[in-house]
């Protein structure tokens, strides 16, 4: 139960993504009385994935609310509460279940500020695990980044590291607009080093700004969420062969930080995007289209390509599942093809 903590000399600690999310919510609940959390099993069960562990014990029934298994109903209730002056965090046990409530996310939350010409804002966060997990099969493995990223009026955020999780969740909760916060179940238990600055109560990561996780000159890799880990692993392998990859962590899906990607391409002249979701009309598709339409196109020495999940519903058997999502070797292969080596 105790998080993996290891105190280093410089005040840095190791914090798992789960604990980073937990601490961010705890601090924001303490900071603003209007913030509250609702969802299935978030209170007495400590969270289906233990992300909200300890919060109910600390804040009680009023602020940490267990809901029945009725996504459309409780998502709508959360949106209504946001309209009337509260700041709800609405948890979907996974984003697959958000499909039941997607009308409330899009039509009631995202569009209302525009339809009311600025009279009615909706300060809400929808959060939960997104994308593929391990062995949970087709109905529980879909990535919704592209679906939500499609819609104006939403901000869509996809953290990778513990620092991302902490800073972006705090920003999302403090943001006065609907934010879809896409976590990843397989990342929850992964520890990351966290500096003292990141541990401070007002550490925020601005929504809409990407981060360069690794500098490089030969090719730009753009990705989000768990795939960043694979990109960095692939980059380490490629570095031994003299290929230096620049890995960009999108952090935010919408608004997309196209400028960061363009600046990188102008340096490296090559682009490969990496995502866990399906290829058609996906994250990579949007990035490639924007690069084509923008100033960076002229800097490309080869067509930009996408590495994506396979265009099938997610199978169950381990070997099949492993071959349904990008592996490190797929990224290495695509990089080398793009660089023609």
């Amino acid at each position: 139960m105790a998080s993996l903590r290891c105190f280093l000399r410089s005040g840095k600690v190791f914090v798992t993504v789960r604990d980073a999310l937990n601490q961010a919510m705890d601090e924001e609940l303490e900071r603003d009385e209007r913030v509250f959390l609702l969802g299935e099993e978030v209170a007495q069960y400590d969270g289906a994935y233990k992300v909200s562990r300890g919060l109910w014990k600390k804040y009680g029934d009023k602020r940490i609310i267990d809901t029945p298994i009725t996504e459309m109903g409780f998502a709508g209730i959360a949106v209504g509460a946001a309209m009337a002056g509260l700041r709800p965090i609405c948890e979907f046990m996974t984003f697959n279940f958000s499909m039941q409530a997607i009308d409330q996310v899009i039509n009631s939350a995202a569009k209302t500020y525009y339809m009311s010409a600025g009279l009615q804002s909706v300060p809400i966060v929808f959060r939960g695990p997104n994308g593929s997990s391990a062995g949970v099969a087709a109905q529980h493995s879909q990535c919704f980044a592209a679906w939500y990223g499609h819609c104006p009026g939403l901000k869509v955020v996809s953290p990778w590291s513990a620092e991302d999780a902490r800073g972006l969740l705090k920003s999302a909760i403090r943001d006065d607009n609907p934010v879809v916060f896409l976590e990843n179940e397989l990342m929850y238990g992964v520890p990351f080093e966290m500096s003292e600055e990141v541990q401070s109560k007002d550490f925020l990561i601005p929504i809409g700004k990407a981060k360069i996780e690794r500098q490089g000159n030969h090719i730009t890799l753009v990705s989000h969420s768990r795939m960043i880990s694979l990109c960095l692993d692939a980059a380490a392998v490629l570095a031994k062969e003299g290929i230096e990859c620049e890995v960009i962590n999108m952090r935010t899906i919408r608004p997309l930080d196209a400028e960061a990607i363009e600046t990188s391409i102008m340096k490296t002249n090559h682009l490969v995007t990496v995502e866990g979701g399906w290829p058609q009309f996906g994250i990579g598709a949007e990035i490639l289209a924007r690069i084509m339409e923008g100033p960076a196109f002229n800097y490309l020495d080869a067509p930009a390509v996408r590495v994506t999940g396979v265009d099938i519903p997610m199978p169950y058997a381990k070997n099949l599942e492993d071959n349904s999502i990008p592996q490190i070797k797929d990224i290495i292969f695509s990089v080398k093809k793009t660089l023609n080596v």
Partner: protein
Amino acid sequence: CRKASAKVITINVSGGNSKEIFELFTNKLVFSDFYLFYIFWQKCDLHKLEEGPPLQAVLSREEGLQYYRTMQTMRRMELKADQLYKQKIIRGFCHLYDGQEACAVGIEAGINLSDHLITAYRAHGYTLTRGGTVREIMAELTGRRGGIAKGKGGSMHMYTKHFYGGNGIVGAQVPLGAGVALACKYLGKNELCVCLYGDGAANQGQIFETYNMASLWKLPCIFICENNKYGMGTSVERAAASTDYYKRGDFIPGLRVDGMDVLCVREATKLAAEHCRSGKGPILMELQTYRYHGHSMSDPGVSYRTRDEIQEVRSKSDPISMLKDRMLSNNMASVEELKEIDVEVRKEIEDAAQFATTDPEPPLDDLCNHIFYNDPPMEVRGTNPWTKLKSVS
């Protein structure tokens, strides 16, 4: 407050029961301080409720005139919208409320402006009772910059303080309303939320999800089903296995009320509000009402019901006529007085229509505004990659 002499008279109430009432007489030439004790001869149908609303209501002259004026304004406004729609000055969806005025006016009379209200797309009447002006409502219908939503919302998306629209997706407003009620309870200001939906929406799953949570968490929510007998072209018998909408909340107490009688609606709303404010949780009201127009302006409204039926409701149960007759026959107001109100209302509507047809459309540089609240200005992609539009909060 002038003292008046009291006189006891006995009247026969339909059904053969005699009741004694007190009637205060004032000088017939001066209608001030006139109060009417009105007795309902129709009891409300109750579901899991010990007591219904009182069988009598007190209507003051001032209240009577105010309800009359508001209902008449609502009626004329909707009829003007009909006209403008046929002239193609209003376009898209337009769902008119004429016939149902007693619901909106009666509900508002039973709550405070500090309470909250949400409804579906047949919302022009509520926008008015919740503080919108006829001018800004009509200008929103015609899509002009002076509209209540600056022309960006249209008929189904009008908002005012503590009024959350105007919602286009059938049934979606019900969980939203319960959420508003949750905020009311959370913030502890003794406010409640009135959450309206129609007989068509009443079969939606999310409404039952909402009943469950509102009841579990004792949210101060008055669910109101405006049963106008038709969900678009489908009569209630063809849509609902049980048309006792006031019972559909199951564990939620309910009552069924004559929605054409503004006093009935008011008294029922007061009872419901008291129920919520005393912490007992949600309550459900079914208002039996009728719409003269079709579902929307694209529905003539006569393929699924007869003109005779519409005419019968108009002649026997029109909410405005009923209130007018009640006030006149009890000497609460004079014919001339009510006519004067009619004239004033007509003028207000004409002025508003004039404004709504001459006010310019929103400026093109408003196109991309109001995406996000409290955010720095940002760029929005136009229809092609070279067009970058500006967006401010």
